């Protein structure tokens, strides 16, 4: 299959991720959308790695996955803490930090 198929799929996944983050108010869904964007990037990395026959792209994917895991851990912990104090995790309710 040509490289462009992978890249188009990657772009579609990224767009879905962006729309998810922008439109959804539930942080869990927003995290899933974030993951979608990460994986869109990962897909692009491995597609280019296969195309160029270079390992560095695959190497980066592992880094991204590690960072994403850590990020999700911190994010979920934050959400638990926020829910305990505010009894809601709707991101539009969490707008106290404003000018």
């Amino acid at each position, binding site marked *: 299959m040509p490289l462009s198929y992978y890249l188009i799929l990657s772009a579609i996944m990224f767009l879905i991720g962006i729309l998810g*983050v*922008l439109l959804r*108010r539930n942080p869990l869904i927003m995290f899933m959308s974030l993951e979608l964007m990460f994986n869109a990037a990962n897909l692009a990395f491995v597609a280019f790695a296969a195309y160029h026959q270079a390992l560095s792209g695959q190497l980066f994917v592992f880094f991204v996955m590690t960072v994403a895991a850590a990020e999700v851990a911190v994010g979920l912990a934050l959400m638990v803490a926020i829910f305990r104090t505010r009894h809601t995790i709707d*991101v*539009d309710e*969490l*707008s106290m*930090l*404003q*000018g």
Partner: protein
Amino acid sequence: MTAETLFPLVPWVVLIPLAGILINLLAGRALGERGVGLVASLAALGSFAVSVLLAVGLAQQPEGQSLLLARWMSIGSLNVDWAFRVDTLSVTMMLVVSGVGTLIHIYSIGYMHDDTRHNGDPARFRRFFLYLNLFIAAMMVLVSADNYLMMFVGWEGVGLCSYLLIGFWFEKGEAGLGNARAAKKAFVVNRIGDLGFLIAMFTMFWAFGSLSFGEVLPRAAEAAPAVLLAITLFFLLAVTGKSAQLPLFTWLPDAMAGPTPVSALIHAATMVTAGVYLVARSLPIFAAAPAAQSAVLWVGALTALFAATIAVAQTDIKRVLAFSTISQLGFMVAAVGMGAVVAGMFHLITHAFFKALLFLGAGSVILGMERGHERHAQAHDGHHGGFDPQDMRFMGGLRSRMPVTFWVYLIGGLALAGVAPLSGFFSKDEILAAAEQVSPAVFVVLLIAALLTAFYVARQLALVFFGQGRSEAARAATESSPVITVPLGILAALAAVGGALNLPGSHLLGDWLHHTVEPLVEAGFNPLTAGIALVIALAGLGLGWLLYGRSPLTRAEEPDPLAVRLKGLFTWLRRKWYVDEIYNALFVTPYTRLSQMLAGPVDQGLIDGVVNGAGGMARLLGNLGRSLQNGYVRSYALIMLVGVALIFTFLLAR
């Protein structure tokens, strides 16, 4: 003791009063009223003792010496030191200041004890003596300085003390502001004169490269005539401010708002004579500028006449003395303006004696009236208000109620009028004799002033002490305590025999001062002039007696006999020729208007507008940025996305 061991004592004339201040400041509360008064009086006495020792030293080494205490500043070619000058002129001033000052300190213990109670704040007793000692220290700096800048330090110091003491009861007076206003007026008017002093000093440094007496005075004639004229005329401005001469005399009558010992010490005997001392000290400069000399002469002579005319119509016992002081200062300034330094200094000394005596006597009268008022008020369920213990119209008959005060006041008054053989006769006669040699016109002006002087003395004596009491307070007045009458007695003795300092024939003071300043006019005793002066004095007294003494007023409401005869003119005299009103219209009101214009439209409108406008602009921008920071995380994400998209578009399109 030799001069070499005595002269180095000179810094102590300043340091002892400062020590008095320190003790009273730190321990005054514990010392109590008597302790504070004692410490302050001893400080003044110590200063006097040092002055006497210096005089003893000068008797052995009359050319004197200048003593360096410390370097003050050295900038480029400007070298100014804290240096003291011990010579016959400065020590004479020291003796007068500390001698009369000591007596007034002692008197103040008694006077302020009563005064602080009449005014309802006994705790202010200590503050009064702190100011008084500070004044002695500042005045000593003024007279003992060896250069003009140090003299200026003292000059400003006495001005400050004058301000503080005029406003001693700063919350009293007309509408609760009268005294504060009087103090402010004195301060501001004096600043005008001080500006003259400063400019004179700048010019002097520019012309001579030095401010020290020892360097400038011997080279006085070297400078260009125009420069000398500038220096001397600006010094004359300083003199008119400090010594209350035309046209800056208006502050002195208002300065009577201060407690009476202050009027005696600062506004009669010592501070106001600083201008006379300045001219006497700078005589070589004035001698080199004849035009300035005649300016000084005429300022003095006209002031002497002008103030005397006002004095005849005043009703406030202290205001009469205030205008009399201005008039007598006019005599002194005229004398030093002529170059008759000995005559001027002689009159300065005798005037210090008899005018301090008159003021302190007036203080005793005021206290007596206050006591009479209180006694009467107690007896009749107290009706207060509307009582002015200084108004001579409510006095009368105090001769029998206050005999000691009467006799000393009589001596002081006759000395002021110039009746032989009291001190004022000899000193005034020397001035008149000098004027006769220099300018007949000035001689006539001064003679008229002398006539008016004798007249207002007679008027005051008659109104205060003769006839019958014209108020309950005057009928119930009582004599003052010994702490007040003893200094009065000493001053009366000095006022009576002070003429012995420079009797015709002996010329004690003349020979003494010759070691320091060479008078331009030798005012010998002239029997004819003396005779004329005596006749004039007696005529003035007689005239006053005819009007006021022969048929004394019986009620306070009766019109002044002089007012009946002079009609409209009397109102002009009583209102001081409307000088205050003229100055208000010419200077004060426009200045206030200008200030209000600057404060209102300019400061609050323009300046504040610019500053507030800058602030408003920042706030507007801040609000704009604030609306971006709305707290919704999703809108931040959108902004980030748009931003990233824009950056990428830019990078790609480049």
